[in-house]
């Protein structure tokens, strides 16, 4: 488990450069360019189970969903930030990527701390400290539990048809 730590206002151009937006849409196309203009180490070294810790307004900027899609695909366990921008927040729910808004957890983290999360209980463990985060409203949990918005929508259409 590794924690990738970044600052405030990490925008969608840093998470996935605009110049690839209309040529890379699939997960395999997206992965090599993740965080390319922010951290050249990320795409080649990220592993399943890693965390991203960041400051306020994470994901601001475009409606670009490649960041959420890509971070979910490479196995980021959760993005923990002081706050998230709203389009990125929606995109992450729609992809089933776990976002944790916890300024306390972010501020408490220091290099080398072990991090773990219990999404059901709404707890995040940073070093020897535990922080609670609010659970998502039922409408959003339903989407995540279905495996993302498209799976949720497909199920709904199927039910309507029958």
């Amino acid at each position, binding site marked *: 488990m590794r924690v990738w730590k970044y600052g405030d206002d990490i925008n969608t151009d840093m998470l996935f450069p605009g110049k690839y937006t*209309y040529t890379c849409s699939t997960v395999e196309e997206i992965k090599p360019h993740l965080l390319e203009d922010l951290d050249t180490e990320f795409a080649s070294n990220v592993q399943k189970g890693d965390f991203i810790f960041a400051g306020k307004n994470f994901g601001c*900027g*475009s409606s670009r969903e490649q960041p*959420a899609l890509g971070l979910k695909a490479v196995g980021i366990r959760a993005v923990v930030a002081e*706050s998230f921008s*709203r389009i990125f927040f929606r995109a992450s729910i729609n992809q089933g990527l776990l976002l944790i808004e916890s300024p306390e957890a972010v501020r408490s983290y220091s290099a080398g701390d072990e991090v773990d999360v219990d999404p059901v209980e709404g707890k995040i463990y940073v070093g020897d400290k535990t922080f609670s985060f609010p659970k998502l409203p039922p409408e959003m949990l339903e989407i995540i539990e279905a495996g993302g918005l*498209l799976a949720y929508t497909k199920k709904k259409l199927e039910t309507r048809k029958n």
Partner: protein
Amino acid sequence: MGMTFAEKVLAVKSGNKEVVPGQIVTVKPDHLLTHDNTSAIIGKISDELDKYGVVRDDLSIIVLDHVVPAASEKNAAGHKKIRSFVKEHHLKNFFDVGEGICHQIVYEKGFAKPGSIVLGSDSHTCSYGAVGAFASGIDRTEAASIMLTGETWLKVPPTIKITLKGSLKYPASAKDLILTIIGTISADGAGYKAVEFHGDVSSLSMDERFTIANMGVEMGAKVTVFPVDETAKEFFSSNNISFSQNDAVWADPDAEYERELTFNLDEIKPVVAAPHTVDNLKSIKDVEGTPIDQCFIGTCTNGRLSDIKIAASILKGKKISPDTRLLILPASRKILREAMAKGYIDTLIEAGALLLPPGCGPCLGAHQGALAPGEKCLSTANRNFKGRMGCKEAEIFLASPATVAVSAIYGKITDPGKEAE
């Protein structure tokens, strides 16, 4: 208790008598905007489209604008796929390359109406608050879902009330006002919130309101909205756009706001957003003299007729500096034709500008006008993020059309007041 604009629209559209901030409601948007990303969107749901079709043939507005004309085989294949999809599903609102930037098309063709909900897979969808619409950006996956079901959830936002006093004094512009507002409240100052503009709104033209609403997302806003006044009604009638006065909802006088701010328009001065965030607000004096390699006037923020007119009036009979280049990008075919008829385009080309086709162009770095490492661009666009124009070692400064036009003459950031004197 009175209700805000956002509360009223979401109550009506969700069939509730009233709603409160934080409440989650299900709504059926009046329109769904998608652009070049339509090919990726329909790629996610090809089986479902075959099985169920689209929910409404007039729901989607599809505009090809982000990489137009196609810059590569891959872009061209995406556009081709979209054209086939439109034909196959008999979609009513499709605009092919050359019509203009999606946000300008939605506004110009009257798809965004007062009190309507427009969601779009582009963050600057918030622009249509200029005409009193509840308009907001969503991601591609959600757009795919809405194409199939026609509905989605929205959380009722709390609202910030911004009261404007007085009127803008040239060379200060709407761009300087919104950059000042964003610099004041920060890039997430309106995060998840609605922003309503009150006060002396009538002093602002529709073009100016569009510029302001367009940049709402740069302060995190969910929607940014203006009241429908006489100026807005004049815009509807002169563009043959029908609308019902009953739909033009506005906040009650006793609505509850999370925060209230006042800006005195008479005091707004030309400003610049320095690299690499939109809230990195600087006065012209702070950055004056910075050499500029590329000047860029256009985009959905400042590519309208009044913007091009200002640039032409400043550059008439002048030449741009040999140390810089100037790109002009009208926001739509309609604007391009009007600017040509009025001679603005000829004036700008005579001064040394390069004309780009209506579309997103250099704004997102996917093609046209990319920057080299170490270069600086002064742009009328809405974002100056690192890497935005194709190169992470380039710098982007944001300013008004007047500031960019004057700066093009000198090849460095220049106070537009210098020309006004």
